């Protein structure tokens, strides 16, 4: 039986736990901006592209006879996902219609590139399994260092500039008219997503990376209102799920990525239930002092239609 002391003293367990906390802190920060921009699937696309990067890293490692063979896997993933993020942002800017197609091509191309290139590198798709689904056994000290640097970069930008990032993702047109650097912010968010994917890939796996960005945010949205509170609540949920999920896999032989993601989904379902119950209770409580927002909007909309009809009429004497 592994004691709590072993967890804290053994590098084998301590490193993944530190990375889990880092993932829990960073993923929802990026996820909040992605959800706000309605780009929830970007993390998934980048996860797939990162896989090609892993394979390219192996290939370069094989050429340069690096040891271990996967020494360059994570740097490869980092490079590929950053390039992928910039590419998708470019497509988004140039053409609004083909964005989801570009994302889809990224999904397929990422996986296909990964399995083909890993074979070229003398490996098999089995070598990719750890990166696809995440694992505990592969975290080394250099991995920890890379994760720490990536997490600090993402948190400094994502939290330090949160007002700017929230303004741009919330209303791009207003941000542009206010002289804010909209394009730079969009690129920053895409790159932050790429860094988070790379950071999370080892433990959570490329196929599930995005879940930790999106699901805690969706759960937080059920519980709190406002942009900043949503982000903070999502961070708490993600840290608890990442740590809790990982600790479960210390005692039970289960894949950590899957357990962590299932934990976030469980929190989401509980949050949904809590909101439904509380919502029902508040509806049966005291009557609201002003008309329901939706009803008012409807009334105003009909007023607007009447206004438009009046405006569409040609000018005649009786109007003045």
């Amino acid at each position, binding site marked *: 039986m592994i004691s709590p002391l072993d967890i804290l003293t053994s590098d084998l367990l301590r490193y993944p736990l530190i990375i889990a906390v880092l993932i829990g802190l960073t993923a929802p920060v990026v996820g909040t901006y992605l959800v706000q921009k309605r780009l929830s699937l970007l993390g998934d696309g980048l996860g797939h592209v990162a896989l090609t990067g892993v394979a390219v890293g192996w290939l370069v490692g094989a050429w340069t006879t690096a040891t271990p063979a996967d020494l360059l896997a994570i740097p490869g993933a980092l490079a590929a996902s950053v390039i992928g993020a910039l590419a998708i942002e470019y497509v988004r800017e140039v053409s609004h219609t083909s964005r989801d197609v570009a994302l889809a091509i990224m999904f397929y191309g990422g996986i296909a590139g990964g399995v083909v290139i890993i074979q070229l590198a003398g490996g098999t798709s089995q070598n990719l399994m750890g990166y696809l689904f995440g694992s505990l056994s592969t975290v080394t000290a250099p991995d920890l260092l890379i994760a720490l640097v990536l997490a600090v970069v993402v948190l400094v930008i994502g939290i330090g500039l949160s007002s700017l990032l929230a303004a741009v993702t919330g209303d791009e047109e207003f941000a*542009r008219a206010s002289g804010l650097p909209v394009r730079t912010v969009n690129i920053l968010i895409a790159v932050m997503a790429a860094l988070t994917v790379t950071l999370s890939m080892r433990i959570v796996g490329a196929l599930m990376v995005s879940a930790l960005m999106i699901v805690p945010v969706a759960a937080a949205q059920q519980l709190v209102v406002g942009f900043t509170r949503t982000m903070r609540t999502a961070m708490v949920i993600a840290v608890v799920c990442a740590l809790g999920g990982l600790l479960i896999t210390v005692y039970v032989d289960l894949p950590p990525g899957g357990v962590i993601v299932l934990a976030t989904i469980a929190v989401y379902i509980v949050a949904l239930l809590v909101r439904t119950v509380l919502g029902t209770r508040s509806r049966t409580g005291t009557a609201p002092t002003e008309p329901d*927002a939706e009803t008012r909007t409807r009334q105003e909309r009909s007023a607007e239609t009447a206004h438009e009809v009046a405006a569409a009429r*040609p000018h005649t004497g009786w109007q003045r």
Partner: protein
Amino acid sequence: MNRSAEPVVEVRGANVQLSGTRILHDVDLRIAPGEMVALLGANGSGKSTLLRAVVGVLPLESGSATLFGQEVHRAAVHDRLGYVPQDSSEAGSIPATARESVASGLLTSRSWWPRTRDPRVRTALDAVGLGDLAGRPITRMSGGQRRRVMLARALVREPEFLVLDEPFSGVDLSTQQLIASLFRELTARGTTILVVLHETGMLERDITRAVVLDHGRVVHDGDAGDRPPLDPGHEHLLDSLPPHECLGQEIHPA
């Protein structure tokens, strides 16, 4: 308030295309400091497009646009601008609170740091009568309340030039009166206003000039009073109404 005698807006020979369709044709627009200019025209006449070109959101295909004598793409001139876009259903999927939304108006080309607790946010919300709803997410507000939040977000910038796209659409009469009286206060302080409207309505007496667009061209630029009818192509609609004496009677097909 007016820092210089130069025009606030100077648009010359502006052509704008959207998705391959030319929306604006050789449009000229000049607005002097302190004016309240109404941009009028039927749906699809290019009012909003011109407005968005003026605030630098849409690029010009040809021609030039300057704000305060500088190119519109220069970020620093936008610090002197307050923009109220049309109420968009495109708002992000995590609704900001009214306070957060208005605070985002405090960001400028040089200052990007959080200021939700800035007293100016509260003042701006109070000015539009929403001081009590500061913590409410904008998606849980009525259309009229949301318009007021967007107005507060522009006002908090203490703009020298306020640009609004149909501020009265979907807004009840008392809110319209509130917005109109805010405009009067602002123009009295020297703020320049450019506003897209369907109808001059309760601003009729406050507007210094009306610019009417038709199919992307300026067809009138002068007094609000002697402008041409907004949509001359639709007179036949009135002719198609049944004669007055028929109203209220049952219809018997021949």
